[in-house]
């Protein structure tokens, strides 16, 4: 979230789209009702289903799953056409006036530089025109035909109401209402917030869904202000922390990059990731990249990281391909993987295409499952009727199941989606011999170290060098690691106050630069519990620690005009008065500089402004474009029939054959969470099992009548990849939509089925889903795929 949970109360319009806050983030949704009650806010819900968020909405609009981009680009067109644009903001803080290279093109669904064979773009042309100093050229008159503003206007011009309605199925009347409500926040004294989660990321164009919304928010001037922002509600309790910790195949902690084969040495690597400013006088905060990276290497390798050995740079593995789990499971499936660790994830239920994942796990030599619960993943080798139809004697995988503690039995910090680092305390010992994950991995690490010392082996150096100097290396204490993450001045031995103190000469050590300030010489800032909110705007600076720098609202410089005067006097975060900056939050800029000297608000960008035109950041284009889901119910793309779906999607060999056509599988299936359950964890929780004991499939009354299905009947839902039996919930809350001249029915499947818990045994929805994912993130398509549904007899 650019903002945070409490800040939702400052919004005038709350848009829930690509998420279902009332069900997936119910307590966070409490701040939506707070805004409605005390700020007279209007709630807009756009979703294929009339869900529990929609139940409280002022305005609900249905849309066909997988068409959010068309919906949002139509909204952009409407805002521009009706002049409901925050022009002051757009002029000052976006790249609307920047001039794009003259060889950049968009034609019939493709941007310039596409290579058909590799399904990738050469992004060379997706860039600004630069002047002789290397700065981007701008045209403040907005007359240049290739300035971003004109390109944007031209790009969204195709998305008129009728076209949008034709693609999305949203009735024009509903669409107009949504547009008008959101458009009303273009004025300085109103803000809209967008709340989204897996409903936008679980698509083959998830990142572009979010980009489309960011375009809307920039047009309205809603980023960096109270009650506005781009707010990813996120998923697991510490998924924010896990991504901060760089637990992704191409990351290092603090959003630094794991080097790849092109980063042949340290100097090249630093050169590749330390951007040069694209406009004069910009902060360009990533210019500090070397300080963050070298300090991190000191926390990885300790004294073994020296200038002479490039701070251990070569010990880091380099990637040649994106080895996300889809790719790695595919390798496993093809017999190229021997070992796998599954830590706190029920992989066989969570990963797409269950049948393939099962076959892949069967090919492993060893599997290590670390989990507090007896997950289906840990017993993938065991027959469980139709739910897991295997023969254990055929499966040669050694499986270790290691019991871990859970939150109540360990101390440490987890980070919520508002970036709050909150410290928690242990309440009881875990059952039996369970251990925290850190202890288990340390136990294995210490054993490996001994083995390498005793036997030698390939590349023993990093195993020996890795900094594991905890008081007891077998049981690293949360406090020790938290201090390591904050960072330390190696000369004085003192905890750092902030990342501004980091050095690139090896004299500071810091595990994760954005966490600097979380455990200073003053102590554990994450454990602070002063909940006072003196401004009344929901800023509680004394509660926990909000990275970075205890800042609660990111890009908050954008809440003022260029002279430091707040756009809205009732919505002040920071303000320049009497020759000084004042504010209720830590400024997201150098508060020692005057407005004239200070730079633009988007300090992480080398040009300091928000981007309507995303340059080379995304795989499928600098502007979003509507592409159909890989499995489309209409079999075409009304905008460009030759480019139907996302052209830049990664297609692993053999996967195309697992995609179904609308002729065989005519209905759209979408999956989601229910309020009562959390993924597959709560199937082991009796109270949750009582409140929702069994999964089901939701379908509309017309489809049910056509298929002779009654409420509560057993039905079979099948995709090209598999089928499952479940019970039908026939509901008015789903309605067929008219799309491209045909009626499209959507069925909905909760993501909570399991056969090893306290709930009724059932299949999980990933029996049906495909591993094809977002072209940038590889997040799998769980929200728009095709199925058939029939009444099941004799169950």
């Amino acid at each position, binding site marked *: 979230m650019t903002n945070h*949970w*409490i800040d939702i109360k400052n919004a005038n319009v709350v848009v829930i789209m690509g998420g279902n806050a009332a069900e997936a983030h119910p*307590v966070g949704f409490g*701040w939506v009702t707070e805004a409605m009650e005390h700020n007279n806010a209007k709630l807009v819900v756009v979703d294929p289903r009339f869900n529990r968020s929609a139940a409280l909405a002022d305005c609900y609009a249905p849309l066909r799953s997988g068409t959010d981009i068309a919906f949002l680009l139509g909204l952009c067109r409407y805002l521009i056409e009706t002049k409901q644009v925050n022009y002051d903001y757009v002029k000052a803080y976006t790249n609307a006036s920047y001039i794009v290279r003259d060889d950049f093109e968009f034609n019939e669904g493709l941007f310039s530089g596409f290579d058909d064979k590799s399904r990738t773009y050469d992004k060379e042309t997706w860039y600004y025109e630069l002047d002789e100093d290397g700065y981007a050229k701008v045209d403040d008159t907005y007359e240049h035909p290739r300035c971003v503003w004109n390109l944007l206007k031209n790009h969204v011009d195709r998305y008129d109401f009728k076209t949008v309605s034709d693609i999305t199925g949203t009735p024009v009347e509903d669409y107009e209402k949504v547009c008008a409500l959101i458009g009303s926040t273009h004025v300085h004294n109103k803000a809209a917030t967008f709340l989204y989660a897996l409903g936008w990321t679980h698509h083959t164009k998830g990142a572009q869904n979010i980009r489309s919304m960011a375009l809307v928010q920039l047009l309205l001037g809603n980023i960096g202000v109270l009650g506005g922002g781009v707010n990813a*509600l996120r*998923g*697991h*309790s*510490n*998924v*924010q922390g*896990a991504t*901060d*910790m760089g*637990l992704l*195949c191409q990351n290092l902690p603090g959003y630094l990059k794991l080097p790849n*084969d092109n980063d042949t040495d340290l100097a090249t690597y630093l050169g590749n990731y330390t951007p040069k400013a694209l406009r004069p006088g910009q902060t360009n905060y990533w210019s500090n990249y070397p300080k963050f990276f070298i300090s991190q290497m000191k926390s990885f390798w300790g004294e073994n990281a020296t200038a002479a050995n490039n701070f251990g740079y070569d010990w*880091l*593995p380099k990637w*040649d391909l994106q080895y996300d*789990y889809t790719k790695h499971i595919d*390798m496993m499936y093809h017999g190229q*993987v021997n*070992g*796998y*660790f599954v830590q*706190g*994830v029920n992989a066989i239920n*969570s990963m797409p295409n269950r049948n393939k994942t099962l076959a892949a796990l069967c090919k492993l030599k060893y599997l290590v499952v670390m*989990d*507090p*619960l007896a997950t289906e993943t840990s017993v993938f080798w*065991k027959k469980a009727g139709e739910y897991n139809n295997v023969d254990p004697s055929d*499966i040669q995988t050694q499986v*270790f*199941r*290691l019991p871990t503690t*859970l939150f*109540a039995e360990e101390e440490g910090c*987890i980070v919520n*989606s508002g970036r709050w680092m*909150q410290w928690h305390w242990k*309440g009881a010992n875990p059952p039996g011999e369970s251990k925290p994950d850190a202890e288990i*991995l*340390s136990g294995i690490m210490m*054993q*490996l170290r001994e083995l390498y010392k005793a036997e030698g082996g*390939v590349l023993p150096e*990093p195993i020996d*060098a890795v*900094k594991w100097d905890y008081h007891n290396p077998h049981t690293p204490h949360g406090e020790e690691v*938290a201090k*390591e993450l904050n960072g330390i001045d190696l000369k004085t031995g003192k905890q750092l106050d902030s990342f501004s103190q980091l050095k690139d000469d090896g004299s500071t050590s810091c595990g994760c630069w954005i966490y600097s300030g979380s455990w200073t010489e003053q102590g554990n800032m994450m454990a602070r519990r002063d*909940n006072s*909110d003196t401004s009344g705007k929901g800023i509680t600076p004394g509660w926990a620690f909000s990275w970075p720098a205890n800042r609660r609202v990111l890009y908050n410089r954008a809440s003022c005009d260029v002279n430091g005067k707040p756009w809205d006097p009732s919505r002040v975060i920071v303000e320049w008065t009497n020759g000084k900056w004042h504010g209720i939050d830590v400024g997201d800029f150098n508060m020692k500089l005057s407005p004239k000297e200070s730079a633009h608000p988007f300090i992480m960008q080398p040009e300091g402004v928000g981007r309507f035109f995303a340059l080379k950041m995304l795989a499928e284009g600098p502007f979003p474009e509507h592409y159909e889901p890989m499995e489309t119910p209409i079999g075409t793309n009304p905008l460009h029939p030759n480019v139907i779906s996302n052209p830049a999607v990664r297609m692993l060999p053999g996967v195309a054959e697992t995609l179904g056509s609308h002729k065989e599988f005519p209905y759209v299936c979408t999956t989601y969470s229910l309020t009562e359950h*959390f993924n597959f964890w709560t199937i082991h929780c*009796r109270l949750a099992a009582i409140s929702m004991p069994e999964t089901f499939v939701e379908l509309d009354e017309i489809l049910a009548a056509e298929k002779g299905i009654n409420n509560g009947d057993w039905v079979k839902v099948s995709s090209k990849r598999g089928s499952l039996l479940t019970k039908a919930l026939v509901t008015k809350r789903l309605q067929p939509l008219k799309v491209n001249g045909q009626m499209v029915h959507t069925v909905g499947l909760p993501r909570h089925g399991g056969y090893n818990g*306290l709930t009724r045994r059932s299949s999980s929805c990933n029996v049906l889903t495909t591993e094809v994912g977002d072209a940038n993130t590889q*997040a799998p398509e*769980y929200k728009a795929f095709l199925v058939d549904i029939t009444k099941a007899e004799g169950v």
Partner: protein
Amino acid sequence: MDRRQFFKLCACGATTSAISALGLMPGTAMAAPREYKLLRAKETRNNCCYCSVGCGLLMYSNGSNGKNAEQAIFHIEGDADHPVNRGALCPKGAGLVDYVNSPNRNHFPEVREPGSNEWKRISWNEAFSRIARLMKDDRDENLIEKNSDGTTVNRWLSTGMMTSSAQPNEGGFITHKFARSLGLVAIDTIARN
């Protein structure tokens, strides 16, 4: 009022009055509410482990936290001081006590041998030694030190890791160091999903 209702009425009056008269009623206890169950229970602050709203929790365990008592959590409710949830919890959070005390918790390290149909309990030492052995054999055989261009790449692709997004950051950092120092590239979290 039909006959059946009248009969019910009479029967009701008769039975209960009769029982009272015969002295079969429970003793003299007056109508005191159930004892408040948290009096003096140990209270620990925590955060909900489910979604990323990060609600504050108060966990109650029995025992005084003295050296001879084994704490067991018997009740969890929202922390009213927490600025986000202000005491509230969703149905998942409200039921956390049954998650902590789930009958499906794992208790001991176990191994399932190739082709076997059952778990076998093992010690932590055995688990660490056997896993480290398997890892080392695989790493020594499959670690790629240089790519075809001769660039040092030091990657180990034949073992991978799906990491937790519920463990604390500190565990996450240990996980990261563990993985990268061994040369693992194929690590991922449920963040994508």
